[in-house]
């Protein structure tokens, strides 16, 4: 979230789309009801299902799953064509006025540079026109035909109401209401927030879903404002922290990169990732990349990281492609992997195409599962007729099941969606012999260090060098690890108080530059408990620590016009007053500068502005475009039938054969969470099992009547990849939609099916889902695929 949970109360319009906050983030949703009651906010819910969020909405609009981009590009067209745009904001704080290269083009669903053979783009043309100094050319009048504004206008021209309705199935009357509500916030005294989650990421164009919304917010001038922003409702309690920790295939902590093999030396890597400003005078905060990077290497390798050895850069593994878990499962399936460590994840049920995963895990030599609950992943080798059919004796995998502590039995910090780092305390000992994850990885690492010291082996240096100088090497304390995350001066041991103190010369070490300031010489800033809200705007600077630098609203410079005057005096975050900046939040800019000299608000971009045109950052193109889900219930793309789905998808070998067609599998299907459950964890909790004992499949009354299915009937749901048995919930909350001249029925299945818990034995919905996913992230398309449904014999 650029903003935070409490800040939702400041919104005038709340759009829940690509998420279901009432269901998945109920307490956060409480701030929506707060905005509705005390700020007279309107709540709009756009979703394939009339869900718990919709139950309180002022207006609910149905949408066919996987068509959000068409929906939002239509909104952009509407905003532009009705002049409901915050033009002052757009001109000053976005790249609307920037000129794009003449060779950039879009035609029949493809952007310029497409290489059919590689299914990928040469992105050369997706860039600004540069002047002789290397700065982007701009036309502040927005009249130049090659400026982003005019290219955007041209790009969205196709998305008129009828076209949008024909793709999304959203009736035009509903669409008009949603468009008007969103557009109402283009004025300087009104702000909208979008709340989204996995309903947008779980698509074959998830990143573009989110990006389209961000463009809407930029056009309305809603980013950097109280009550506005781009608000990802993170899933797990510490998704934010796990991502901050860089636990992703190509990341390191603090959003710095795991090097690629194209960057053989530290200098190569730093050159590739330290941007040059694209406009004069910009902050270009990533210019500090070398300081963050070298400090991280010092945290990794300690005294073994020296200027002479490029601070241990060679020991960092270099990637040739993205090895996300989807990719790695595919490699396991092909017998290319020997070992897998699964930490707190019910992988077999959480990952798509369960039948394939079962074969993949069976191919392993060893599987190590760290968990505090008994999950189906650790017991994948146990035969369970119907639910998990395997030949146990033939599975040669050695499996370890290692018990871990849960939150209540350890201390440490987790980061909520609003980037608040909150410290928690231990309330009881763990059951039996359970250990914290950090203790377990230390135990394995100490064993490996011992083995390499005794026997030698392949590349023993990094195993020896990795800095594990904790008081108890077998069990580093949370306090030590936390202080390492904050960063310190390696010579004096002094904790840094800000990332501005980090150096690229090896004199500082820092586990995650964004966390600098969280554990300073003043102590632990994350367990602060002053809940005072002096401004009444929901900013509680004395509660916990919000990265970066305790800032609660990111890009808050954009809450003011270029002269430093707030767009709306009731929404003041910072203000240029009497020759200085004042405000209720930590400024997200250089507050020493006069606004006339100060840089633009989006300080992480080398041009300082928000990008309506994304340059080369996303694989599908610099503008979003509607592509159908990999499995489309209409089998075509009404905009460009030759390019039905994203042209840059990653196709693993043989996967094309596992994709169903609408002829065979005529119904759209989506999966989701219920408020009573949290993935599979709560299936082991009696109270949660009582409140929702069993999963089901939701379907509309018309489809149920056609198929002779009554509420509560046992049904068989099948996809190209497998089938499940479950019970039908026939409801008015789902309804057939008219799309491209046909009726589209959508089914919905909760994702909590488990055969090894306190709930009723149930199939995992991921027997049905496909591993095809977003080309940028590898996130699978759990939210839009094709199935058939039949009444089952009992």
């Amino acid at each position, binding site marked *: 979230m650029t903003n935070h949970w409490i800040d939702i109360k400041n919104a005038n319009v709340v759009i829940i789309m690509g998420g279901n906050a009432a*269901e998945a983030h*109920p307490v956060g949703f*409480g701030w929506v*009801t707060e905005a509705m009651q005390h700020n007279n906010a309107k709540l709009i819910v756009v979703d394939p299902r009339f869900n*718990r969020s919709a139950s*309180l909405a002022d207006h609910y609009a149905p949408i066919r799953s996987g068509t959000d981009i068409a929906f939002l590009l239509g909104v952009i067209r509407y905003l532009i064509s009705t002049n409901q745009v915050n033009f002052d904001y757009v001109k000053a704080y976005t790249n609307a006025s920037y000129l794009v290269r003449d060779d950039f083009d879009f035609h029949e669903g493809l952007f310029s540079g497409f290489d059919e053979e590689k299914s990928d783009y040469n992105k050369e043309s997706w860039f600004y026109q540069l002047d002789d100094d290397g700065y982007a050319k701009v036309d502040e009048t927005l009249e130049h035909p090659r400026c982003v504004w005019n290219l955007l206008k041209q790009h969205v021209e196709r998305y008129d109401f009828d076209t949008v309705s024909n793709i999304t199935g959203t009736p035009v009357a509903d669409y008009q209401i949603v468009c008007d509500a969103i557009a109402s916030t283009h004025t300087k005294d009104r702000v909208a927030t979008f709340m989204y989650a996995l309903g947008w990421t779980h698509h074959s164009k998830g990143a573009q879903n989110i990006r389209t919304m961000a463009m809407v917010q930029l056009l309305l001038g809603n980013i950097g404002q109280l009550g506005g922003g781009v608000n990802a409702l993170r899933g797990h309690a510490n998704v934010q922290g796990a991502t901050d920790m860089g636990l992703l295939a190509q990341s390191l902590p603090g959003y710095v990169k795991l090097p690629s093999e194209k960057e053989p030396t530290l200098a190569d890597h730093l050159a590739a990732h330290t941007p040059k400003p694209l406009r004069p005078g910009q902050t270009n905060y990533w210019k500090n990349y070398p300081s963050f990077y070298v400090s991280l290497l010092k945290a990794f390798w300690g005294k073994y990281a020296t200027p002479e050895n490029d601070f241990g850069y060679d020991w960092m593994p270099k990637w040739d492609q993205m090895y996300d878990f989807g990719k790695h499962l595919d490699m396991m399936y092909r017998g290319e992997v020997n070992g897998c460590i699964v930490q707190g994840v019910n992988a077999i049920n959480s990952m798509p195409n369960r039948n394939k995963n079962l074969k993949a895990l069976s191919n392993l030599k060893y599987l190590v599962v760290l968990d505090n609950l008994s999950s189906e992943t650790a017991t994948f080798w146990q035969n369970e007729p119907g639910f998990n059919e395997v030949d146990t004796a033939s599975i040669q995998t050695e499996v370890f099941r290692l018990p871990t502590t849960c939150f209540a039995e350890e201390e440490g910090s987790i980061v909520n969606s609003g980037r608040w780092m909150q410290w928690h305390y231990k309330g009881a000992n763990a059951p039996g012999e359970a250990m914290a994850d950090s203790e377990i990885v230390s135990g394995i690492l100490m064993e490996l260090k011992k083995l390499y010291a005794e026997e030698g082996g392949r590349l023993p240096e990094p195993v020896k060098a990795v800095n594990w100088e904790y008081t108890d090497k077998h069990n580093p304390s949370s306090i030590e690890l936390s202080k390492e995350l904050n960063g310190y001066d390696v010579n004096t041991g002094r904790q840094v108080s800000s990332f501005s103190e980090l150096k690229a010369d090896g004199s500082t070490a820092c586990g995650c530059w964004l966390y600098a300031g969280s554990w300073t010489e003043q102590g632990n800033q994350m367990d602060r408990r002053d809940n005072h809200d002096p401004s009444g705007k929901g900013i509680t600077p004395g509660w916990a620590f919000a990265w970066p630098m305790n800032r609660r609203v990111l890009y808050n410079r954009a809450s003011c016009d270029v002269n430093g005057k707030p767009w709306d005096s009731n929404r003041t975050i910072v203000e240029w007053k009497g020759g200085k900046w004042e405000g209720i939040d930590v400024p997200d800019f250089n507050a020493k500068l006069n606004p006339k000299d100060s840089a633009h608000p989006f300080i992480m971009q080398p041009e300082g502005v928000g990008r309506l045109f994304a340059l080369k950052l996303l694989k599908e193109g610099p503008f979003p475009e509607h592509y159908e889900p990999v499995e489309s219930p209409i089998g075509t793309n009404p905009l460009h039938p030759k390019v039905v789905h994203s042209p840059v998808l990653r196709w693993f070998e043989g996967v094309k054969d596992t994709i169903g067609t609408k002829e065979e599998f005529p119904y759209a299907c989506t999966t989701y969470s219920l408020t009573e459950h949290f993935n599979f964890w709560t299936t082991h909790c009696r109270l949660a099992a*009582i409140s*929702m004992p069993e999963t089901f499949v939701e379907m509309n009354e018309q489809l149920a009547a056609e198929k002779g299915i009554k509420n*509560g009937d046992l049904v068989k749901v099948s996809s190209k990849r497998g089938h499940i048995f479950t019970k039908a919930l026939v409801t*008015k909350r789902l309804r057939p939609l008219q799309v491209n001249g046909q009726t589209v029925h959508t089914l919905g299945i909760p994702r909590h099916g488990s055969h090894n818990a306190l709930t009723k034995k149930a199939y995992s919905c991921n027997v049905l889902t496909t591993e095809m996913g977003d080309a940028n992230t590898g996130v699978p398309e759990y939210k839009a695929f094709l199935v058939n449904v039949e009444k089952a014999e009992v």
Partner: protein
Amino acid sequence: MATQDIIRRSGTSEATPAAQARVGGVKQVAKLFDATKCNGCKACQVACSEWNDLREEVGSFQGTYQNPASLSPECWTLMKYNEVEADGKLHWQFTHSACMHCADPACLKACSTSGAIVQHANGTVDFDSDKCVGCGYCASACPFDIPKINPVDNKAYKCTLCSDRTAVGLEPSCVKTCTTGALRFGTREDMLFYAEKRVAELKDRGFTNAGIYNPEGVGGTGMVMILRDINDPESYDMPKDPQIKVSTELWQDVLKPLGTAGILATAGVALLHRITVGRNIVEEDQPGYRDEDHEEDSK
């Protein structure tokens, strides 16, 4: 130890009231359920069971989000789910179903066991289970179908308004946990004041039929509700005009005093009971009565 704040007690006439010296400074409390702010998350339901150490059996899917299917001796708060089409729109309506803590409690009137049901000065209607004989009169008399008899210990159970929490100055567990502020707790006066204000807000937002559910037939309730359409409480599974049954009134006002006066013979009570309320409880399919003993007998 007596709480000495009992303003009514079952099976007791005015001749022998409960100790009630400590009522002077006590304000009546109320729980407010604002259905227009509820999203049916079930936090109240789970928090109730957690606080009260109740663990119902894990059931099965019954074609609805509603689980368990009904209130039970081990489920004192239940979210109910109704899909309603009105004003050209679909409404998914949720009801926080739990004891209404009636000002004039039918259960207490129907109960013949001295002190098994009491009403505290703050308005809470509470069951003193050690005295309960499990006769089920309360269950059959309740116009809201709340009390449930546990076949294991043959006692009646229902929401206590967390009397153990309110006694130490805390709000009920369900209210504290409510995620959207649909549940509130305070003095009855404050809750009614707030409810009126809230209804006015709702009318401004276009909920022209919004209103307060505080039915007079039971003397008003300690759980006050705000409903989207006050003319259609049935769409929330709430009775439109709940009344104390004539039979219960008769039992309380005419027949029970006889007990104090001369102690009626058992046969007489049985006969009268058969005539008045008896038939309401002898049907075994009544949701209020689960009689495993009887099932054993009939096998």
